[in-house]
């Protein structure tokens, strides 16, 4: 990677890292950390959905698996949280690979792939809700024990920097992927699977690599969520909400671009905070806006906000 390609990422990270110096209100930082977690999950979705063109409706399966793994390893087996985090991420990657193996090998594409991923996530949710080890319907609590060695920080700002560090790392990974052979093959598969195969691309292997990476990144978001909020239940970990969030942000911000998911995540969540401050706590209003935005963005090409801005400028 050249310096020119890395500069925008570093500038973004540097500017974003300054936020806690200006904002000290707990609620604002809370909001910022949550937004970063969503961005991370969305970055994961973007690898498979954005670059690979395989729209998953079930990224909750990966988010939840890593989240539960982190929590369960700590609570039930006394594993170090950092190690638990790593195991959770790896496990999410494996789950991604396995789901990918079955669905891609059967040749599921487009809507069928979306449906089958949704069903997998639901299966996980039902199982997590009914088994002992996850705490069942009551959920699982990670004991509050604020020590840096425990991956728990007294200061919200520290957690913000950790989350930002992960988001930045994934920005770099995504940029590297764009430059790598795998990235090019992935885009080729998205644009025309048969043509890619004819040119000698091992389509199945490329898709599997993409879904494993994608799942691991979204898993990192889940593990981070568990570590920050210290509580999980099956509707948080495996609920449709996170699958939808992970897919909305890149679509609003620009699919298959390095900054798309982060841009989309920040726009969506700022918008939702703004509406809440306008209309008060009516449940669901922010999501109505998300939905309307999604319809509008798809209805009027080029399908994402940066594209809209470009089109206006071109006039």
């Amino acid at each position, binding site marked *: 990677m050249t310096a020119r390609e890395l500069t925008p990422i570093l500038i973004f990270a540097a500017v974003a890292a300054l936020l806690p110096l200006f904002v000290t209100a707990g609620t604002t930082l809370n909001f910022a950390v949550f937004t970063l977690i969503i961005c991370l999950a969305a970055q994961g979705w973007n690898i498979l959905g954005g670059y690979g063109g395989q*729209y998953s409706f079930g990224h909750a399966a990966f988010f939840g698996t890593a989240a539960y793994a982190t929590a369960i390893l700590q609570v039930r087996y006394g594993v170090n949280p950092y190690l638990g985090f790593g195991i959770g991420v790896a496990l999410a990657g494996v789950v991604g690979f396995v789901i990918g193996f079955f669905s891609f090998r059967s040749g599921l594409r487009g809507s069928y792939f979306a449906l089958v991923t949704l069903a997998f996530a639901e299966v996980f949710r039902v199982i997590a809700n*009914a088994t002992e080890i996850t705490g069942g319907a009551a959920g699982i609590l990670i004991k509050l024990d604020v020590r840096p060695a425990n991956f728990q920080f007294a200061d919200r700002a520290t957690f913000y920097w950790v989350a930002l560090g992960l988001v930045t790392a994934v920005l770099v990974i995504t940029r590297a992927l764009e430059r790598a052979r795998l990235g090019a093959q992935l885009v080729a598969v998205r644009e025309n699977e048969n043509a890619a195969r004819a040119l000698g691309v091992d389509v199945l292997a490329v898709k599997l690599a993409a879904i494993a990476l994608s799942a691991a990144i979204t898993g990192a978001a889940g593990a981070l969520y568990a570590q920050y909020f210290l509580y999980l239940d099956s509707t948080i970990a495996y609920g449709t909400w996170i699958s939808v969030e992970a897919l909305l942000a890149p679509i609003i911000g620009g699919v298959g671009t390095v900054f798309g998911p982060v841009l989309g995540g920040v726009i969506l969540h700022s918008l939702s905070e703004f509406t809440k401050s306008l209309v008060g706590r009516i449940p669901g209003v922010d999501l109505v806006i998300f939905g309307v935005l*999604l319809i509008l963005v798809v209805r009027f090409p080029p399908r994402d906000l940066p594209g809209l801005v470009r089109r206006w400028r071109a006039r």
Partner: protein
Amino acid sequence: MEAVANGLLTGAVYGLVALGLTLVYGVLHIINFAHGALLTLAMYAAYVAWHAFGLDPYIAIVPLVPIFFVLGYAVQRLVIGPASRGDDSNILLVTLGLSIVIENVMLAVFRSDTLSVQVPYAMEVVEAGPMLLSFPRLVGFGVAFLVAAVLFVILAMTDTGKAIRAVAKERTGSALVGINVSHIYAVTFGIGTACLAVAACLLLPSFYVNPRVGNAFVLVAFTIVVLGGMGSVPGALLGGLFIGVVESLSGLYFGDSLGQLGIFVIFILVLLFRPTGLFGAKA
């Protein structure tokens, strides 16, 4: 035995929900993610009809069917159609957006409370030999089959029905012989939505409604549609009955919380190994 019978009765209404979905898929070749949310909307409409106007849910079918037909027609004509531009993923996203909007408007208006209607016959049972069958479910079973029969007649006999079948088979050809394809698309979507209005009225007396109720049905409906073969009307009904029995039996043996698991597992297995459905033709 009683579980099987009750499963069959519930399954018929599932089949009706799936019927709308499969019709839309068979003709428009789109997967309508908003189907569950539209069912939720219809159930709230039936609830309001009962709560505000005192209409019995079964009588509410009469006004709700045309209203939902028009609604479906408009949604396809004004939202889904223009947004699709022939791209599969666009439709997926637009219908997902629709479902998010509908679900959360319901949440904002009615809050997350679970509502139900009190009708005198909700708990009534009918004795059939050794079995006790719930009266509302029995009605649901009968009406679901009636609707399927009516739909069958419409598709087989009327000009519109013939046009719908023509468009399903060959879109370009139909356009060439003078069929207004986007009109037929919208009519089909309207019929699919009207099926949901009937299903909602049939469900309400024995079920409850909350903003997320449609989600419980949407994967079930997709399972049925996939099982019965995408676009197949008899497949949807048979698939519905089958799934109803599976749900009822797995609920009996594994308990309520794991009962739904059977449906999802079937769904995944069918998608992975027989994506054309058990009754569907080979692709």
